[in-house]
């Protein structure tokens, strides 16, 4: 598609969508959001970019093949489940670390659940882009 407005707009929108997708991913920790929706929003950023400037440029901007991103995401999600083994607990039991916790304050909670969500984010992001790029290239 050859549209100056779209191209100019995409430059900002794509970046904004990617930032927003990370926000959604982290927000999913305790509120609506999470890896799936974050991945979708992030993929939208690149889809928009692909529509504006073409899939070849979008692939170049992504640097890595989207399929590989999805598979790495699967690996990360699996790892998040396997981490429970280090603590002698069943597969996929959430492991929590409270950074800087005090008597009154919980501190910053970090968990393998978040790692799993990052994996989901990457799987969704990669899978959507794989499909969309393939479709765009077919047409």
């Amino acid at each position: 598609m050859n549209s100056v407005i779209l191209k100019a707009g995409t430059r900002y929108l794509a970046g904004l969508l990617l930032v927003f997708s990370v926000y959604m991913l982290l927000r999913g920790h305790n509120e609506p959001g999470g890896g799936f929706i974050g991945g979708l929003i992030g993929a939208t950023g690149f889809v928009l970019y692909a529509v504006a400037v073409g899939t070849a440029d979008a692939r170049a901007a992504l640097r890595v093949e989207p399929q590989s991103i999805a598979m790495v995401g699967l690996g990360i999600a699996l790892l998040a489940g396997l981490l429970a083994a280090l603590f002698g607990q069943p597969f996929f039991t959430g492991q929590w670390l409270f950074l800087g916790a005090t008597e009154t304050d919980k501190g910053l909670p970090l968990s393998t659940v978040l790692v799993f969500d990052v994996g989901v984010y990457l799987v969704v992001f990669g899978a959507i882009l794989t499909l969309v790029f393939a479709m765009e290239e077919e047409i």
Partner: protein
Amino acid sequence: MSWLLAVPIAIPFATAVFAFLLRNGAAGRWVSVAGSAALLAASAVLMQAVLAEGVVAGQMGSWPAPFGITLVADLLSAVMVVITAIIALAVSVYALADIGPAEERLGYHALFQVLIAGVTGAFLTGDLFNLYVWFEVMLISSFGLLVLGGRAEQIDGGVKYVALNLVSTILFLTGIGLLYGMTGTLNMADLSIAVDGADQGLLTVVAMLFMIAFGVKAAVFPLFFWLPAAYHTPAFSVSAVFAGLLTKVGVYALIRMFTLVFDHDTGLTHTILLWVACLTMVTGVLGAAAQGDMRRILSFHIVSQIGYMVLGLALLTPLAIVGAVFYLVHHIIVKANLFLIAGVADRLTGGTALSRIGGLYASAPLLAALFLVPAFSLAGFPPLSGFWAKFLLVKAALEIEGWVIAAVALAVGLLTIYSMTKIWAQAFWEPHPEGREPRLSDLPAGQRWAMLAPIMALAALTVFIGLFPEPFVAFAERAAAQLLDPTDYVETVLGDRG
């Protein structure tokens, strides 16, 4: 304990990740082989534990049953996982020769390993919704494998395959929704208790939904049409693993649900299953007789053989369940092997259409001998594994004085011999129509052994089971006893509530 159950699912996933990232070199295929070998080791350990301690259950994520996802292995699950691992190893070795670099770059090995993960997941899960998820994992990866390469014929078969399987999925989900609405639980062990208090009429409706949903997966009459349309199109290693494992997951799900949960009105449900089983046997074998392509014949035989397994479930006597379990194990080994042999025949003679190939007996007697083992076993010749499988089922039918059923089972066995003879006569006995003399030594040595070693191993396994059936029958008896009296299963799953 719970790790024993998680590892057989985690290994194929991890293998898939590495195989995909390394897909552009030779390393990817060796990762796949190594992953399958590791899976075999893990499943052997699991089997050991189940043999020693009875049913093993684990609560994933430490969420107690029935709220979390439970993985559970009884003897049937454990033996299915072991067989899955054996087939995975055989096929991933075979794929070294069968799958070209182009398909590898598209991610063949990763898809294959994800498929295996789906299969082991389906065998090990103790949660109905989780079973649905594994079905979908299998469906997506098998669809990917089916259309890999993208020939029109493949896509045509693939679309039929996916459309019918999605309909089955939708029925399955509807059944899940109804069951949840009725009982408030989806844990299979919990369900087996909870259904006693439910509306029995509605429960029968749900049982029918599940029968149709799993029936499509298992390819029983009259829901099998997708199978012959799809199985003859992909690469041979793909159709071998499909033939061996995919439909058997449906049979497994049928056996699991109709012994554990839906045993309230066996007079109705299992009578329907009995009819379905007989019609499946007959249509499958007749369909095979009308075909002229090696892979299509074998595909129809899958359908007919599924009938035997469902027959075992439908009769629901201890001996019949023993027969069904034995048949499952025997069939997976034999069927996968026949497809692998068809792959070698295709490589040597340039096709699988029977009218266009031939001469294999004269030029490749080793392959001919290797074909005879699973072919006779499939037809039920002593002393091969198929004989004992059929013997157990026919005996079970005679015990309840089901003369017609026994006669059907025997007649179908005869017709199976007929189509095996057809393959034998046209592909092996008659000379090649173009006068080619295909020799095994024409293949490069590495490829030759990558293809023949798995075939020989599987054939040896068939012979071994046939010659020494006692431990296997004894094992099947124990597995059947667990299925018919699920107290241990239920207690192990729910006992971990703690």
